């Protein structure tokens, strides 16, 4: 590598990082769908997909091929450019936010951190900003479809996402106050002193904030029990009623990619990111390589636990009514999040 300049090395490694992270995220999306079908199947006392490949493991690939090969219907009355742009906005925003997530302990190769695509000093705000841009995908898809069920679904979804964004953002303020930074790496480092005891949810006493975040995140990603935008019993399929083939698949992938992002943020902010739950109780064995792999292992395990929780909740809880959803967000979660900020900053001020 000696004949390459520093900038060329940086560029090359960055391109490789982006490609690898993108492929892994898309594979995770595909297999989260399989995980969901399998787990819900088990919870409802049936098998789930089991025919394609061993234990149905090839099902996501076959599903992908099916969606690719389906006929791409384009209704006559749609607003064509926006109808095409909407799924791209949805999927693009869902995939971009993975770029700022640090998914392993800091590991430098040629001066470039290989376990984070972009280390940004306002990483948390970047994720919140991208989430708030993602609303356009849903809003535009409903409007440009020229279908009243789609429009109702997208209006519901836009209102829901804007309302819960406030509670979501405010629930993270307590964590930011403790870490004194918006850099995700710094936030993770602030929780890595004593393993599980220094995680924000336990040692940081941010469990109220965590539960607010969890509920707001379910609403943000339009998942059960807050999946009113696509409530099939009343709205056919909500905002993606008119979409077929690959464009439908893009919405589908965006939903699961958003789930993964939200789980990553929960892991980073409340559960110590890539740090081990045992802290220094277990001696570091096996050298630098094993330690790097181990940190990625802890991160993936935590994210997987959150995805499991998502699926568990979906197969357990019934759907909310729309007015219940709104009053829950505005009258319960928002005041609670503000109270959490006041108490946290008061305690920090007394201590410091």
């Amino acid at each position, binding site marked *: 590598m000696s004949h390459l300049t520093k900038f060329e090395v940086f560029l090359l490694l960055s391109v490789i990082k982006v490609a690898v992270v993108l492929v892994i995220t898309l594979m995770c999306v595909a297999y989260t769908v399989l995980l969901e079908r399998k787990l819900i199947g088990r919870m409802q006392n049936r098998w789930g997909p089991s025919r394609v490949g061993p234990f149905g493991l090839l099902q996501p690939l076959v599903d992908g091929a099916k969606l690719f090969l389906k006929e791409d219907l384009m209704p006559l009355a749609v607003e064509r450019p*926006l109808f095409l742009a909407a799924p791209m906005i949805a999927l693009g925003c869902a995939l971009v936010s993975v770029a700022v997530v640090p998914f392993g302990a800091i590991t430098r190769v040629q001066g470039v951190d290989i376990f984070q695509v972009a280390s*940004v*000093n*306002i990483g948390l*705000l*970047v994720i*919140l*900003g991208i*989430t*708030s*841009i993602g*609303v*356009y995908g849903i*809003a*535009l898809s*409903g*409007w440009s479809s020229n279908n009243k069920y789609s*429009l109702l679904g*997208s*209006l519901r979804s*836009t*209102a829901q996402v*804007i309302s819960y*964004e406030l509670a979501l*953002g405010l629930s993270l303020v307590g964590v930011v106050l403790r870490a*004194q*930074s*918006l850099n995700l790496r710094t936030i993770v480092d602030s929780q890595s002193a004593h393993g599980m005891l220094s995680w924000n949810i336990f040692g940081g006493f941010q469990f109220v904030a965590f539960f607010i975040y969890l509920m707001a995140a379910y609403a943000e990603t339009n998942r059960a029990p807050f999946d009113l935008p696509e409530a099939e019993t009343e709205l056919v399929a909500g905002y993606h009623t008119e979409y077929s083939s690959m464009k439908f698949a893009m919405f589908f992938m965006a939903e699961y990619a958003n789930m993964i992002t939200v789980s990553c943020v929960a892991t980073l902010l409340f559960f110590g990111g890539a740090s081990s739950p045992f802290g220094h109780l277990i001696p570091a064995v096996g050298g630098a390589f094993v330690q790097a792999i181990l940190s990625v292992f802890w991160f993936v395990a935590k994210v997987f636990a959150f995805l499991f929780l998502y699926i568990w909740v979906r197969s357990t809880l019934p759907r909310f009514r729309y007015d219940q959803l709104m009053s829950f967000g505005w009258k319960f979660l928002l005041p609670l999040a503000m109270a959490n900020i006041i108490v946290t900053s008061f305690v920090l001020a007394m201590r410091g």
Partner: protein
Amino acid sequence: MQLALFIIFGALALGGALNLLFQRHPINSALSLVVVMMSLAVLYWSLGAEFLAAAQVIVYSGAIMVLFVFVIMLLNAGEEQKTHGSRAAYTVGIPGAAAIFCLLSFVFLSQGGALKSANIGGDLGNGEDNIAAVSAMLFTKQLLPFEVTSILILVAILGAVVLARKEQ
């Protein structure tokens, strides 16, 4: 690389602004405004104001413009039609805009020495954290204007509630 960022996003902002004016359909205009705001956010970031950039994206493109789009969708507004007023706006507006452009560029060119030259993208490389500086400034020296602004927003919220409430 920073100069390239400036050129790309400056051009995008200009293109979005022109498209905003020339589009007939309100939703296309609203979306062009979103493009303008996002490119402005990138320009802020390349000047080292990363908090301002994030606030721009979250507040303007993520909240205010979503409400604009929301209202346009709810009202199902159609294409604009040419009226007497719009023709008058063309005849007065274009020379007016040109005059303001000339005036501003004259001021910037003649007072170039007094204005410090901006270091385009110079603060991207050594990421200095200016959020602490911004908040310290807001809560010490600028505390009164800051609080007065929040009271203004509170009054606006109360006004909206009064207007939206049903008559008993």
